């Protein structure tokens, strides 16, 4: 096997280790220290329909309405059973609209303490698949389940072939999931039990061969555990799916993030929508990068206030999520629905004299055209400068080094660019999500927005088959 050699290993339950060779760990400054802090309650919370790709929201509440944690705020126009609920109790104070009156945010002024809607403690063993499904839909947890193909919220009418959960992240500065799951082991296991009811196939956990140590992952019940090693994107669930049970045409598989499995578990243990989660505050511009316990949708200010490096001529960029796939936010912006990480980067908005030939010890590149390659192990204060305008494809062979899948990246991208549906299908578009191509975008010398291209391709496929 070229991409990953499969070896038998005696150390951990005789399970095989899938070694990912391709990819890259971008050396960034600002990894979170393993200290967990309770973030103060935020002044504002928000649920953003924009976090869910392709969603057309229909509101269920009006500005000024009181909501509880778990109150439905809106639903999907095209899948009316999928509800989106409030993470906190308080007053729905403001509806923020963007261009063409697109709904961007529903802002909620929180009460001092949360008042939850009681969904009732369920006896999972006695519940049918249909009952589990409807509880997840009713409580607003369904959107935590995403499906491939298309990388969208799971379609409710389809029973997935299998469900995948990646229990480690390799994204730059990503939160350590062993740390996130600490103290929540029972909820995590409960969540797995719930999910295993929803498929006839297997529930797969992907763990890191050396780094994962939490028994919640390694000894999980109702699931089969696959061991991986290697650089980013080995932690991406898409890569793990590709190397365990690749998606063929017609297959539907689901993916759920670890924190969301925990939240689902809590629903079945406590009967409430408890949207608290642990996030890693990371990045070169953070004074003390560490972990915070927050509630989903919290205003970033509650976490980053007083913890940002203040320098002349440098504006910080706030990213909800990791630096490769996160959403651009602001000091007063909000934590995204799927995110377990907030990253603060320096903006790279200062011009640089003949920067394209300068030796540049402080810039990272996988090409060895910067003298910085002489300093392996160095971590960088990476800024957001794009360096150049967009160019056509010129350099070849680079994306292949960043994508540990048996997929021809440039040919797939070209098929998407000319909207050739057949070619996209033949070249494996069902298996991919934009995040799997994030590193290709990072290294691209032509500065092509590759993740957007992949998203565009997936959207074309959705349109074609709906």
């Amino acid at each position, binding site marked *: 096997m070229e991409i990953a050699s499969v070896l038998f290993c005696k150390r951990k339950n005789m399970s095989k280790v899938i070694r990912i060779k391709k990819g890259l760990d*971008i050396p960034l400054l600002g990894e979170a220290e393993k200290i967990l802090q309770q973030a103060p309650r935020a002044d504002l919370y928000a649920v953003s329909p924009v976090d869910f790709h392709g969603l057309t929201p229909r509101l269920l509440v009006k500005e000024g309405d009181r909501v509880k944690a778990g109150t439905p705020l809106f639903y999907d126009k095209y899948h009316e059973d999928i509800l989106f609920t409030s993470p906190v109790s308080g007053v729905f104070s403001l509806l923020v609209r963007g261009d063409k009156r697109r709904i961007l945010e529903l802002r909620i002024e929180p009460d001092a303490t949360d008042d939850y809607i009681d969904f009732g403690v369920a006896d999972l063993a006695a519940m049918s698949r249909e009952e589990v499904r409807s509880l997840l839909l009713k409580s607003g947890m369904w959107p935590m389940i995403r499906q491939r193909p298309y990388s969208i919220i799971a379609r409710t009418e389809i029973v997935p072939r299998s469900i995948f959960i990646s229990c480690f992240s390799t994204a730059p500065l990503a939160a350590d999931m062993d740390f996130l799951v600490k103290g929540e082991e029972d909820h995590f296991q409960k969540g797995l039990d719930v999910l295993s009811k929803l498929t006839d196939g297997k529930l797969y956990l992907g763990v890191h061969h050396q780094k994962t140590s939490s028994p919640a992952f390694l000894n999980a019940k109702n699931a089969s555990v696959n061991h991986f090693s290697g650089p980013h994107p080995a932690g991406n669930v898409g890569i793990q799916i590709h190397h365990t049970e*690749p998606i*063929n045409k017609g*297959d539907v598989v689901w993916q759920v993030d670890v924190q969301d499995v925990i939240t689902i578990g809590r629903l079945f243990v406590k009967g409430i929508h408890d949207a608290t989660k642990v996030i890693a505050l990371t990045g070169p511009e953070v004074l003390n990068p560490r972990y915070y316990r927050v509630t989903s949708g919290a205003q970033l200010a509650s976490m980053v206030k007083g913890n940002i490096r203040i320098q002349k001529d440098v504006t910080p*960029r706030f*990213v909800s999520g990791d*630096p*490769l*796939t*996160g959403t*651009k936010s602001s000091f007063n912006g909000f934590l995204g629905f799927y995110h377990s990480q907030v990253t603060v*980067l320096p903006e*790279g908005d*200062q*011009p*640089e*004299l*003949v*920067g*394209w*030939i300068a030796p540049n010890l402080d810039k*990272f*590149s*996988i*090409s*060895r*055209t*910067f003298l910085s390659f002489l300093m392996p192990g160095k971590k960088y204060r990476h*800024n*957001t*400068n*794009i*360096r*150049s*305008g967009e*160019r*056509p*494809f*010129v*350099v*070849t*062979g680079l994306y292949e080094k960043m994508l540990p899948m*048996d*997929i*021809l990246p440039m*040919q797939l991208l070209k098929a998407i660019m000319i909207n050739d549906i057949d070619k996209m299908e*033949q*070249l494996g578009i069902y298996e991919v999500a*934009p995040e799997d191509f*994030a590193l290709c*975008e*990072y*290294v*691209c*010398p*032509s*500065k092509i*927005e*590759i*993740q957007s291209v992949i998203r565009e391709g997936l959207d074309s496929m959705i349109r074609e088959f709906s």
Partner: protein
Amino acid sequence: MKAILNIVEKVKPHFEKGGRFEKLHRSFEAFDTFLFVQGNVTSRGSHIRDAIDMKRTMFFVIIALVPALLFGMWNVGLQHYRAIGLEVTIFDQFLFGLVKVLPIIVVSYASGLAIEFLFATIRDHEVNEGFLVSGMLIPLIVPVTTPLWMVAVATIFAVIIGKEVFGGTGMNIVNPALLARAFLFFAYPSYLSGEVWIETTLLEGQQLVDGFSGATALAVLASGEGHLLPSVLDMFLGTIPGSIGETSTLAVLLGAIILVATGVGSLKIMASVVAGGLLMAGILNLVAVNEFMAIPPYYHLIMGGFAFGAVFMATDPVSATQTEKGKYIYGLLIGVITVLIRVVNPAYPEGMMLAILFMNVFAPLIDHYVMQANIKKRLRRYEKARAVA
């Protein structure tokens, strides 16, 4: 830096919409981005980007060409003074070459960039960096005696017909620099063959030494005068007649090391071309019926434009195959065809140019088959899964 930035900022409005030189804003932008890496930040997708860009990539190819360029300049002088039998210092030899070569470089860049800027303005896109390399390659693969107007015509032809008609850098089918060379070769054959490799314009009182030939190693072999072949060391070092930058295998090797070490050039292609060349030469050597076939296979690597073509021409990522597996086939066939043309076809002693152009045209076909293999593999996986279910 601040001062320059201020000047740029001051003149910028004239080139923007509504400004006096609005039409020239693409040209202005090209110079602006040349002076400064702009303060443009990411807006969609990945928030951070690798510091490499097209300018830097192209610039490193030019750095890799510098050894061949400097050696070529010196060799032009060396060959000239040898031809007229004058003993002069290395510095004088280099100076002579510099004076002869520099105008060719200036003409190549001026004519090519003029077209690039013109098309960028007409089509309203950013000026692409591709020609930075082509502009340097063209002077290195022509004989020093090529008239300047011919260089200009060939460059303009190559940029327009080879590149712009397809949509500019990244869209071309064949390598523009090689197309320029091929254009010269077929349009002005008398200027590109025979005794053209050495500058032999004589000043008053000068005369050629007795028995001066000035033929390249390949021409010598093609005419069956193997005893006149230069020594292996001379051919490796490059102190032989030939196009300006192609003679020194050593200098090209230095360039190859720079390209591979920086990750800009594809070692896969370079190695495959060499392997293909050795393979074909080895086969011909086994069934040798004439002098050209009988030479040791490695001679092919150090004669003519083989090394230069393998390192700087075949590796052009746009005109080469774009799949990784395809690169092996592409390279291998270039090597094979080059030697085949050299040895078997008496009309063209230099096969490198034609072999690369030929394979440029076939590169998409190779990619097609690599792609089909990938598609079939996926299809088989699908059918296997369906059979189980």
